[in-house]
């Protein structure tokens, strides 16, 4: 595909759907659309046909800042050896429900 053809494509959008009130928006996939309004309506047509959601977010894929896979060790490995950060060393008081 030539550079020209790439530029003529609709930009890519990442779609996030909230399945019900109180829950967070969740990434469901991506699609192409000319602008924000059409991204929302395309998302409605592609990702909510079976009653999946009550709210849609569309974000230009180009606007998402992502961590680099090459930085994985530096970013995430140090957390592996710090089990004390997990709240599993506290006895649960008797009579406390829903903890």
């Amino acid at each position, binding site marked *: 595909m030539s550079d020209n053809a790439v530029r003529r494509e609709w930009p890519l959008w990442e779609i996030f759907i909230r399945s019900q009130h109180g829950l967070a928006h969740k990434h469901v996939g991506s699609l*192409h659309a000319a602008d924000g*309004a059409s991204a929302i*309506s*395309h998302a409605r*047509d*592609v990702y909510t046909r079976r009653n999946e959601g009550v709210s849609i977010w569309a974000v230009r894929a180009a606007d998402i800042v992502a961590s680099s896979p090459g930085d994985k060790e530096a970013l995430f490995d140090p957390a592996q050896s710090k089990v004390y950060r997990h709240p599993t060393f506290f006895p649960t008081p008797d009579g406390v429900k829903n903890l």
Partner: protein
Amino acid sequence: MSDSVLDPKFETLLRLGDNCLVLSQQLGLWCGHGPALEEDMALTNVALDLLGQARLWLSYAGEVEGQGRDEDALAYRRDGFEFRNLLLLEQPNGHYGDTVVRQFLFDSWHQHLLAALTRSTDPRIAAIADKAAREVRYHVERSSYLMVALGDGTAQSHDRMQASLETLWPYTGEWFEPDAVDAQSAKAGWAPAAGSLRDAWHASVDAVLARATLAKPAYAGHQRGGRQGLHSEHLGHLLTDLQFLQRAYPQAQW
């Protein structure tokens, strides 16, 4: 149908149902051929909405007629001259701009029709209209958006949209012409009088055409007859496809 005295309620319901059925069939032809995956899905969704509406109208039509015909009998075993859809809707899909213009002209009329039908004196009609109106609110939003996007797009897309509009415009005149069925139906309060939607429709169309930088075609006579069963040759071809299975294998079950 040989009966010269038409049942106005049955006829009214056929007009409502056949519009949805014929347009749904036309949009279904785009399935897998849309200009982008997203558009393909969107158009197919609209087609399915309309098919659902056609089922509701035609089922009720069959009950009102009382001859034991259900939605399938009405959809698959009537001939062209028994169809009551608007002529616009049987016009070929053409290029995508033609399809968008046809859809926009119909959607913007359909929304006003359904809004009026929710006030029908027949509770079943009002209930079906209420359900359909919510779907059509999205249809008209979508087709209006595309009118603006393509009309106010490139010079080429603008010119093609303007040409589509000029070609299809003459098919909108018949929507507002009252006939005997329409008069009886309006008198009973089942459906609005045909002419009563004219001003609201023009206002909706004008607003979108202005944003789309498209010129409203000058009025120059129009095609009529769809609601009375006088159709263009296109309907026959469309029904050949639509009805093939039931014609070739009568009573075939899915």
